């Protein structure tokens, strides 16, 4: 395997090498493979798509051995992680000293791997940290002792050791909620999940202050990855599932409705467990799609009428049931749902199909399943790409929006002209300045929107909240006859003299192609005029994905005034009025 990887790297087959490294890592993740995986991915930098990210770790114990394991897991997940370790037990100084290496490293996220806290002091440190840095902060909870100092007596008394730990962890959670961009990693639950006795290595604790057994280092790294995937945006927005032997046991085309295994009893229970995970993902805002080689009538009959189905047709944003190659179907799913292929995760019990998809569409995140269906649900739950750190109202209702979108498409096909279609939508727009209530969603849109996005500038909540008076942040809400689409657009404007500069203008793919952008821009322009601006200017910075926004400026009468290697700059004379489509109403 090692020779194979080096041969592929030597031949310049970067994607294949990355795939082989991923396979190697997944088959045996841990300290033994970490060094090799990290050193080879470092050679692949620049040839495979990796998101760079800076992580600082403040700690009260030896975490050095976790770092290579974490970096290997990150590389395999598409993240090129630079890690800085704080000095042993020096986290307070690191936070309090403005000249510390913590701040000079300028991390994007900080993990606080600390075993005990004094909560009053911690609150102050967090406040200072937030004043000085916009980085996300991940706080470990405190671990309960495997056996309390008082022995069984501990369970008999009121202010027990156990109570004390629980109280501290409760306070920690409350504290984290008071600050933006601070999250809690339930270390106590993590240790319990794997077993306190097996997690701890007393010898390494006593000799080198490393409390985690060698075999569990990878589990700590994976837990950190559950935060790093959503923080870096390397997440799945869509889960595409196979049907036969994945969503139910057996083959619908051969076994029929009565023959497939799906229900509350074993063996059907294993497949209901898979469906339950899918519904959990659905309520996190992850879209569900079907990608199956089957006769559509057979499969739809089972989806709609099998009594054991927990996932219903209304949960499915897109169905590709045919005999075409899965790679092709996944491309179409991405296209129909308006997401990049790198936002699609695919799950299939058949290793051959998984291999085919990995080779044909390397962007797609393929989730490996064990041979036994009883392990399927766990494998899905363990995949960090489905993790979310915040949940907006929009996320919780995303599945419904897409169902409404399907109906809208049907209407579009039945309406004659485009204008007739726009009118029939009865769209209503609400343009508002950002508020503390909408800040999280606005930041999320800047981080996730790739397609209709003029500049693709990413902002955290902290950055947006910290921006001064000179910056105007607007949110856009769109309602139509089918539903309230929620917050689906953002504009960030900066007034400089005569000019109103468009720093950011983006629309969620959910509302592209409905003239919403024209009305949004017209409203922003009218407000800029009211503030006394004479020109509106902005950059279009092309990326691999933002072609849908390419003609935005030209289409709205802007003139190109500059062009450089990064993009083009456009300007609009605000003395010319900008028209808003009369089929859109403002609230």
């Amino acid at each position: 395997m090692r020779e194979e990887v080096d041969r592929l790297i030597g031949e310049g087959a970067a994607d294949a090498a990355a795939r082989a490294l991923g396979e190697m890592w997944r088959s045996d993740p841990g300290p033994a493979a970490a060094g090799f995986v990290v050193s080879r991915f470092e050679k692949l930098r620049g040839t495979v798509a990796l998101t760079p990210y800076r992580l600082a770790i403040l700690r009260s114990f030896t975490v050095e051995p976790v770092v290579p394991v974490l970096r290997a897991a990150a590389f395999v997940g598409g993240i090129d992680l630079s890690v800085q370790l704080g000095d042993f037990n020096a986290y307070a100084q690191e936070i309090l000293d403005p000249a510390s290496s913590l701040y000079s490293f300028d991390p994007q996220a900080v993990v606080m791997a600390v075993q005990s806290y004094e909560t009053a002091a911690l609150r102050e440190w967090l406040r200072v940290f937030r004043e000085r840095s916009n980085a996300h902060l991940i706080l470990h909870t405190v671990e309960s002792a495997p056996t309390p100092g008082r022995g069984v007596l501990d369970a008999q008394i009121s202010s027990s050791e156990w109570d004390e730990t629980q109280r501290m962890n409760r306070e920690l959670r409350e504290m984290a909620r008071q600050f933006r961009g601070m999250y809690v990693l339930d270390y106590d639950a993590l240790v319990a999940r794997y077993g306190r006795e097996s997690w701890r290595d007393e010898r390494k604790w006593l000799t080198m202050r490393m409390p985690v057994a060698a075999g569990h280092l990878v589990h700590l790294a994976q837990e950190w990855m559950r935060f790093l995937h959503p923080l870096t945006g390397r997440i799945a927005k869509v889960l595409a599932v196979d049907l036969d032997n994945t969503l139910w046991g057996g083959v619908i085309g051969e076994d029929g409705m009565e023959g497939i295994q799906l229900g509350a009893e074993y063996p059907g229970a294993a497949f209901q467990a898979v469906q339950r995970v899918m519904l959990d993902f659905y309520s996190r805002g992850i879209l569900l799609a079907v990608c199956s080689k089957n006769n559509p009538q057979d499969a739809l009959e089972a989806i709609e009428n099998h009594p054991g189905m927990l996932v219903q047709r209304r949960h499915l944003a897109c169905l590709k049931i045919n005999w075409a190659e899965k790679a092709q179907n996944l491309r179409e799913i991405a296209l129909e749902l308006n997401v990049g292929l790198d936002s699609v995760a695919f799950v299939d019990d058949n290793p051959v199909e998984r291999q085919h998809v990995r080779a044909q569409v390397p962007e797609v995140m393929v989730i490996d399943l064990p041979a036994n269906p009883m392990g399927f649900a766990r494998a899905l739950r363990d995949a960090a790409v489905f993790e979310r750190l915040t949940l907006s109202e929009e996320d919780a209702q995303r599945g419904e929006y897409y169902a409404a979108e399907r109906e809208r498409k049907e209407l579009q096909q039945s309406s004659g002209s485009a204008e007739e279609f726009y009118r029939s939508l009865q769209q209503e727009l609400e343009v508002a300045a950002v508020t503390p209530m909408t800040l999280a969603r606005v930041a999320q849109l800047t981080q996730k929107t790739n397609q209709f996005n003029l500049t693709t500038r990413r902002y955290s909540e902290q950055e947006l909240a910290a921006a001064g008076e000179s910056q105007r942040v607007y949110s856009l809400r769109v309602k139509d006859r089918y539903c309230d689409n929620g917050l689906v657009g953002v504009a960030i404007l900066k007034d400089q003299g005569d000019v109103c500069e468009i720093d950011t203008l983006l629309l969620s793919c959910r509302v592209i192609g409905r003239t919403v952008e024209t009305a949004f821009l017209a409203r922003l322009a009218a407000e800029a005029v009211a503030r006394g601006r004479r020109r509106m200017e902005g950059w279009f910075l092309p990326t691999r994905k933002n072609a849908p926004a390419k003609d935005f400026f030209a289409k709205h009468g802007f003139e190109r005034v500059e062009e450089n290697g990064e993009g083009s700059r456009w300007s609009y004379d605000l003395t010319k009025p900008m028209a808003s489509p009369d089929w859109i109403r403002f609230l």
Partner: protein
Amino acid sequence: MVLRFDQADGEPGLDSISMIILDQVRTAAADVLRIPLERITEASTPESVESWDSVEHLNLILALETQFGIEFEPEEIEQMKSIGEIARLVESKAG
């Protein structure tokens, strides 16, 4: 099993099993220390390999512990002064 580690090009020294373990230990060390496998020999020590510091020593130990399913005593970790000694220790534990 009695092992002899002869420096004279290995011919009469290591039997086949321990050669396999030596190679596995060398590979693990090359991965952890991030240098080509050819540069790690039975005689390599923390003094002769620049990247072999105390952190990487710990990483090497953890790599071997997870790979072979063994555990080293603190005293043993201190004694592991060369690739040859480490391989011998691994052999005696994993044997």
